[in-house]
């Protein structure tokens, strides 16, 4: 299959060429899977939710407006799929986010400057543990994918000011969590 853009691909699928949808799955599959994994924190659930989002997108494709970006539209479906999955789980099994903190660092300032990749990943795990699912989605899209506030509003259906407030809170929560982990570790280190 030659390289085609998303809009052409959607047009082909709407004409009945289902196979063109594979191009979109290949293009957005990794990102979708990763986003679901960050939000749901479970590989199997992430895979299932990402697949479900693609199938929902396929089913709803006739309603997609070709003048807008497929990615924004698709991420909105993905976002809603993850959020409703969490709501369903919370209702049936009492879902609680895994907010285990991480205790591996020494001095706060020193630690930040000496963080290696592995440390960063562990810190991130702890920081994500205190965020709500929608905040994780926003943080991932803003800090990793460099999406704009406008794009995030389109993806989530929130207003731009709401997105900014949520991101601001998420950022504060992550910093607070990182600081508390570092302070705790400094205290443990000093009492040794």
């Amino acid at each position, binding site marked *: 299959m030659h390289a085609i853009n998303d809009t052409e691909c959607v047009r082909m699928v709407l004409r009945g060429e289902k196979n063109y949808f594979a191009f979109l799955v290949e293009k957005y599959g990794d990102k979708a899977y990763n986003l679901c994994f960050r939000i749901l924190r479970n590989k199997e659930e992430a*895979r299932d939710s990402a697949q479900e989002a693609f199938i929902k997108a396929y089913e709803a494709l006739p309603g997609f*407006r070709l003048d807008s970006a497929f990615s924004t539209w698709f991420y909105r479906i993905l976002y809603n799929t993850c959020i409703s999955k969490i709501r369903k789980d919370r209702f049936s099994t009492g879902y609680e986010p895994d907010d285990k903190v991480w205790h591996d660092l020494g001095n706060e300032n020193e630690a930040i400057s000496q963080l290696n990749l592995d440390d960063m990943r562990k810190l991130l795990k702890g920081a994500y543990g205190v965020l709500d699912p929608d905040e994780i989605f926003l943080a991932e899209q803003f800090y990793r994918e460099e999406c704009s506030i406008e794009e995030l509003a389109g993806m989530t259906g929130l207003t731009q000011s709401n997105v900014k*407030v949520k991101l*601001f809170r998420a950022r504060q929560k992550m910093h607070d969590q990182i600081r508390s982990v570092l302070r705790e570790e400094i205290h443990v280190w000093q009492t040794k």
Partner: protein
Amino acid sequence: MANKMITEEDLHDEFLSGMIRSEEPLSKPSWFTDEIMHRIGLIPDEARLKPYKPPVWLKWGIPGSIVLCLIGLVLTGQAADPVVHLPSLTLFEKISGYINSWFSGLNINVNFPNIAISETVIWVMAGGLILTWSFVLLFRFLEKKVRQ
């Protein structure tokens, strides 16, 4: 901080960006796409969602039946009392007068200004209006939702 004061630049954070990007992205399983395409292949084409369009009979039927009821009410209504003298005419009565004189050519008498409308009829009409608008708004909502 008030949300209007938060700018996009305020939210940029090199440390957080670095930390989030430090995590290597996972790769989707190799069979991920094939499984989706297999499941898509099982979906019959007619099962795919299409933007909801109300059937023509429903779209025009509801307002049409209300208009017909109103016309029926106007034409068949019984006059409460024959009006002998109207000292002052309201705008509504004047309009009805014009309509009456127009219908007089067709030999139809419109009794609307003199009609005694019971409370039940008013409630039924109000209910009809509420139902109509509920349908209209529901259609719009469904259409919007499907488009999302």
